[in-house]
């Protein structure tokens, strides 16, 4: 059985958030990957990033909805908590944009 959440549950809740966060933020990601994610986040025509943003927003609203320990085990962040990691991620990618603003209405 794959250790990767999104391989085990391709349609599972927050699969896109966990996959993208793992790819660009885990200890295995190279030093330029995070910069790539920041650029990718600004590209409004990338469907996966639209889904990612929605899932990130939902996770920030209620981190208890994330599947078990999957995000932590996958990304292995050093922010101290899931909430701290998600907040940092949102701020780094979307700056001061309010979390509650729906997709397609970015300022």
């Amino acid at each position, binding site marked *: 059985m794959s250790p*990767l959440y999104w*391989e085990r549950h391709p349609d599972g809740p927050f699969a896109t958030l966990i996959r993208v966060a*793992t790819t660009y933020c885990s200890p295995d990601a*190279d030093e330029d990957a995070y910069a*790539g994610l920041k650029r990718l986040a600004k590209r409004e025509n990338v469907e996966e990033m639209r889904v990612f943003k929605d899932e990130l927003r939902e996770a920030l609203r209620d981190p208890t909805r994330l599947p078990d320990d999957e995000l932590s*085990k996958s990304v292995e962040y050093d922010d*101290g908590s899931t909430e701290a990691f998600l907040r940092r991620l949102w701020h780094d990618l979307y700056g001061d944009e309010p979390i509650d603003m729906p997709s397609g209405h970015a300022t």
Partner: protein
Amino acid sequence: MGARDGLEKDEIHVPGTDTAHELALAEGLTDRVQAVPLDETRSRGEVYAEQRQRTEGGWEPRTFEAPRTELGRFDPEWAALPQISLEAATDYIAQHRTERPWLTAADAASPEARRILVAADIGDSHGHIRHEGWVTEEANMRRVAYREDPAQLDLDKRYQGIDGLRPGDRPHRCGNIATRVTDPDAFATAFARGAEHPKVRAALDIPFDADVWPGPVTVPIAELLGATGHQYCTGWQLEQVGDNTDTARENRSAWLRARREGREPDVPEPKVRPVPTFEGGDMLFVVGQNRTRDGYEIGTMHPEPPSFGH
């Protein structure tokens, strides 16, 4: 520096390198620990770590029988790596073994495996640096306990947790687990077969986009190395604290921060233990951008146990 890290020969004193706290054996296993032979040349730390891996991880050193014909046919360009001949690979190791000591692990490999390891070294892949037999059990144990990067050849910087491969003295990151393939032929075989596996190829072959990294994919170890392939994998993992994996990493960070600042930590010292088995586990391939930023390659590869889901 030869195949073995200078720490192991007690050539350089680095504070904390031989402290025993993190090396404590699991309870009940002291009667199974073998006495250290008088002619033992390895450091105490390495003997201790290897004994723990044997008693708690059930590991025994083994030699993998390389599929030499198959490895000889492997085209490194298939993995976005440079072409190199058997002879050129041998010359490369002779030329670079001092400043790139991980190459010395290839001394024990078949020529065909050696060629693959050298191709990976010339490319931007680092799996053979951190996740192959050059890395000792002690180094792997210390990596997950103290975030000491085995790729960091400056021992003071290694002790400070500075990454050995990223520029700018950045902190080395290590998650809850550090693993390796213990035999260079096994590593090269897994790498070559992985590069030809449909899942890995799907990641390698996506049209290049400067903002996109394909990310990790997994292939069962048994598919790459056979039914006994897991016997060529070892690892160390942080003991979980409480009911989530965040706390162990956070405590480790706090403990290391206190040690760097010369004050008494207010959290327990990180505790680690050998991964009990890799049977049923997977090889994880991280596909990223190549050095010239015009294509994708296997950035690293390491085994994952079945019970350590990402």
